[in-house]
């Protein structure tokens, strides 16, 4: 079975709830007493975040995703990660997938660095034994030293990011999904991190990265997708799409 992603007619609707629709009391009363009113005063709005996506990504693809804020890039990445379920359409992901989105969000502030390595590792679907094996290497890479056994609430924001980065990049997924290139820590660490991330990119069979940087997209990807308003505007070689996209953006 080869690694790949198949997407057919994928739609994602985001429900937006008003206060009324979040209250069960109001819902019940509305239905019983003012049945007619509720039909007119519809408080349930859905935003069509992704519209009819059709895409096939195969092993070897390095996909860069371009688009304005709100174009649906992050939603798309989260759908790939299985966080958001498609409202309709088909999504097949073959192979293990890791997403570096909102890194560090799942950390437990009261737990120690060491405990957080296990927690995050398991959330990334790494087997417990693998985490235990990689533990020392992760601690060393994060340069946290003795801090690793202190609750992470005592860490500086740079230390937190270093820890999260070290955990995330210790996984070896078939498919790597990234929201913006990660750059963490001071200058020294950044260099180290860059190398590690590049390594990860190279060892993954598929890389999907959303970015705003032309330089980066050209450096990493061999295929670029331009998204706007939840739709794919263009899908082609980095050269073609970058010229069009950045040409448009500059105008």
């Amino acid at each position: 079975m080869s690694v790949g992603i198949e997407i057919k007619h994928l739609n994602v609707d985001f429900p937006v709830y008003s206060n009324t629709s979040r209250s069960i009391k109001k819902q019940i009363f509305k239905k019983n007493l003012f049945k007619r009113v509720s039909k007119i005063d519809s408080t349930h709005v859905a935003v069509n975040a992704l519209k009819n996506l059709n895409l096939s990504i195969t092993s070897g693809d390095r996909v860069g995703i371009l688009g304005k804020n709100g174009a649906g890039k992050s939603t798309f990445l989260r759908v790939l990660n299985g966080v958001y379920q498609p409202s309709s359409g088909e999504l097949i992901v073959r192979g293990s997938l890791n997403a570096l989105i909102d890194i560090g969000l799942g950390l437990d502030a009261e737990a120690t660095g060491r405990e957080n390595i296990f927690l995050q590792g398991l959330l990334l679907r790494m087997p417990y034994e693998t985490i235990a094996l990689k533990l020392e290497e992760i601690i060393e890479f994060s340069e946290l030293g003795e801090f690793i056994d202190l609750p992470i609430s005592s860490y500086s924001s740079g230390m937190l990011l270093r820890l999260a980065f070290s955990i995330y990049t210790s996984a070896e997924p078939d498919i790597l999904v990234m929201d913006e290139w990660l750059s963490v820590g001071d200058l020294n660490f950044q260099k180290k991190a860059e190398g590690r991330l590049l390594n990860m990119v190279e060892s993954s069979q598929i890389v999907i990265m959303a970015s705003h940087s032309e330089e980066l997209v050209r450096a990493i990807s061999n295929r670029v997708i331009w998204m706007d308003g939840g739709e794919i505007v263009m899908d082609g070689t980095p050269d073609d799409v970058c010229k069009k996209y950045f040409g448009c953006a500059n105008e």
Partner: protein
Amino acid sequence: MNKLYFSQGIRDFKESLKFHQLVKILISLDIKRRYRRSFLGPFWTTISLSINILIVTSIFTSIGEGSIWTNLPYTAIGVLLWHFISTNALESCDTFIQAATIIRQANAPIFVYIYRVIFRNLIFFLHNLIIIALIFVISPWHIGFNLFYAAAGFLFLLVNTFSLAILLSIFTARFRDVGQLVTNILPILFYITPIIWKRGFTEIVSKMDAVMVFNPIYSSISVVREPLLGHSVDIHCWYVVFFITPLLFITSIYCYGKLSKRVAFWI
């Protein structure tokens, strides 16, 4: 269509078993949090519960019948089981809100976060069992083979708590005021259920005895408490438990299958 959602729920349930390590670490972090900066940790709850039990028993003994030592095991077991049920219900109301950041980031089946609530409370419940052990040591009564019935009864209670937790977790994620509703209903349920008082306690209560048996909370508690006290269980209680357990379980798995994929959008 109906069957589809149910089997979806079952599939997720099986899938979630693969995440036992994650559940374990989430629970251990929760428990460590309780012990942190406090040597007694969850035993503080145990102490407060035992004082509670002692006071309630002395009051009810003074206006009812029996001696404090014969009434104490009854009240203690009742209150501890109720505490387990009610804290589970209360904390289920916040399962996904507590785990919101994790859910938006990882794609584990959300059963994981429900297990976290149930098993965390089960461990605290085991802490509290020391109260019953203590009463037993001071004033033993005959249990014998009834212990097996009590264990079976507790298994039913556990399944019911689990089903209830699924339903509450999901509905509180969608409707934010369900939590308040639960907070308000729980004390009422506590008072209308024979937990600290007994069936036939007063004349009015005796008249309503027929209705009392159909209180699922009473039945669930009874099938654990009565055998533990060495008494036989009112067969009606078993009927109610046999009826309510599969019903609640199927409903909750169905709702899970139907709605669990929406939770990420709600939180």
